[in-house]
């Protein structure tokens, strides 16, 4: 019987990304040693997120309230929208102290994979710019071919609104060494150099 419930937990945990059977086993035995409150806390948090998570109707971030905390925060700069591919990108940008608002596209354009503009939240972004008093759109899509294509496409779409459109800078990661950088990254870093 005991083997059954442990086995169930191990099987359930292996469904998580990056968790193999060995790690799942280790986690399962760790959960056994946790206090009932801590263990229930994890379980309820999982149930909660599955029950309550939805997309914000304004920015398409994942939220439990609509509009999300960021969109309903009056201290935020509503004139600046940072456009990202995925909700997880918001968490990374929030760590920088950015105080504007966001717009999640829920993907990036990729004609080879059949991801066309109608599958992303681009029209919603255009409508948002039209109805709100937006002054700047920061395109923070990933610095790869898909992200670049998406940024260029959005630029073409929102150019008629005559607002400031900016793209996050390219360059070398802090702590890295120029010697190991590839030519494309280095060329982009040189292109985007600034006067000191």
């Amino acid at each position, binding site marked *: 019987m005991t083997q059954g419930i442990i086995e169930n937990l191990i099987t359930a945990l292996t469904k998580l990304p990056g968790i193999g059977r060995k790690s799942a086993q280790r986690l399962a035995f760790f959960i056994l040693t946790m206090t009932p409150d801590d263990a229930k806390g994890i379980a309820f948090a999982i149930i909660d997120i599955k029950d309550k998570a939805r997309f914000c109707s304004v920015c398409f971030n994942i939220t439990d309230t609509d509009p999300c905390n960021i969109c309903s925060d009056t201290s935020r700069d509503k004139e600046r929208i940072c456009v990202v591919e995925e909700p997880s990108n918001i968490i990374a940008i929030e760590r920088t102290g950015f105080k504007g608002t966001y717009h999640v596209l829920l993907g990036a354009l990729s004609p*080879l994979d059949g991801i066309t503009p109608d599958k992303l939240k681009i*029209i919603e972004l255009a409508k948002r*710019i039209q109805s709100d008093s937006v002054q700047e759109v920061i395109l923070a899509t990933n610095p790869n*071919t898909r992200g*670049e294509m998406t940024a260029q496409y959005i630029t073409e779409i929102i150019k008629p609104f005559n607002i400031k459109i900016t793209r996050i800078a390219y360059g070398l*990661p802090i702590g*890295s060494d120029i010697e190991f950088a*590839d*030519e*494309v990254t280095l060329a982009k870093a040189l292109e985007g150099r600034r006067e000191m």
Partner: protein
Amino acid sequence: MLKRTEGIVLNNSLFGEADLIVTYLTRDYGLLKVFAKSPRKIKSRFGSSLEPLTYSKISFMGKEDANLPRLTQSDIIKTFHALRDDLKRLLNVSEMLELSLKFMPEREPHFAVFKLLLGTLTKLESDCDNALYLLYYKIKFLEIAGYAPRLDMCGRCGTISYNGSYSGHNNFYVSHGSIICEKCIRDREGSIRLSDGTVRLYNSLIKWRLSNINRVKAPAYMLSEIGHVINSHIAYILGRSRQLRKENFAVGISP
């Protein structure tokens, strides 16, 4: 066993948290899919070498019959970033890449296709807006793959055209993949009517070398007619549901 070759990245797809499955058109192994560990992390040693269109020297490891060998090294030879940096060009080039992805079987070396793709990308990089290169690539690719439309003979009776065309009666039938002569036509519905000049241009293009293409100046209507024939033909071969997706990529949605 470690293997080395040269390849052009056709596509990459996300796998797991930070990994990629990269599809190459290689010189020695044809279409090859490899697994790359953590290239999406900022400090990855692969850098930008796994982006589509990048031509690089690669090393990969795996058993002879391994479905997904592991990419161990990728050194950029050419990035073709001029083609990647512009949305319209990238959309055109992605049609070329998609042809290889759709028509070529995995792990069957085909040097002619590799040479054609590399040659066309090199030419396109210096003459980005020459629409004839894209058309030439599609025609030559279909010819190598054995699917090229026949505009030099009737698809039913095999009569060879006089002087390169059927003198004003050039009706291309997608279902036959060829022109049908006046004697053999039963139903004109579904045919694509082509001008004599277009048919002559097509029949010449299929014989010409890539290095001669920059000398050709063709009128826009001829390019458009050939483009229509080729795209309809490809869509027919691939089936309606699998036609080239670039066609569905609406560039002009207005706010």
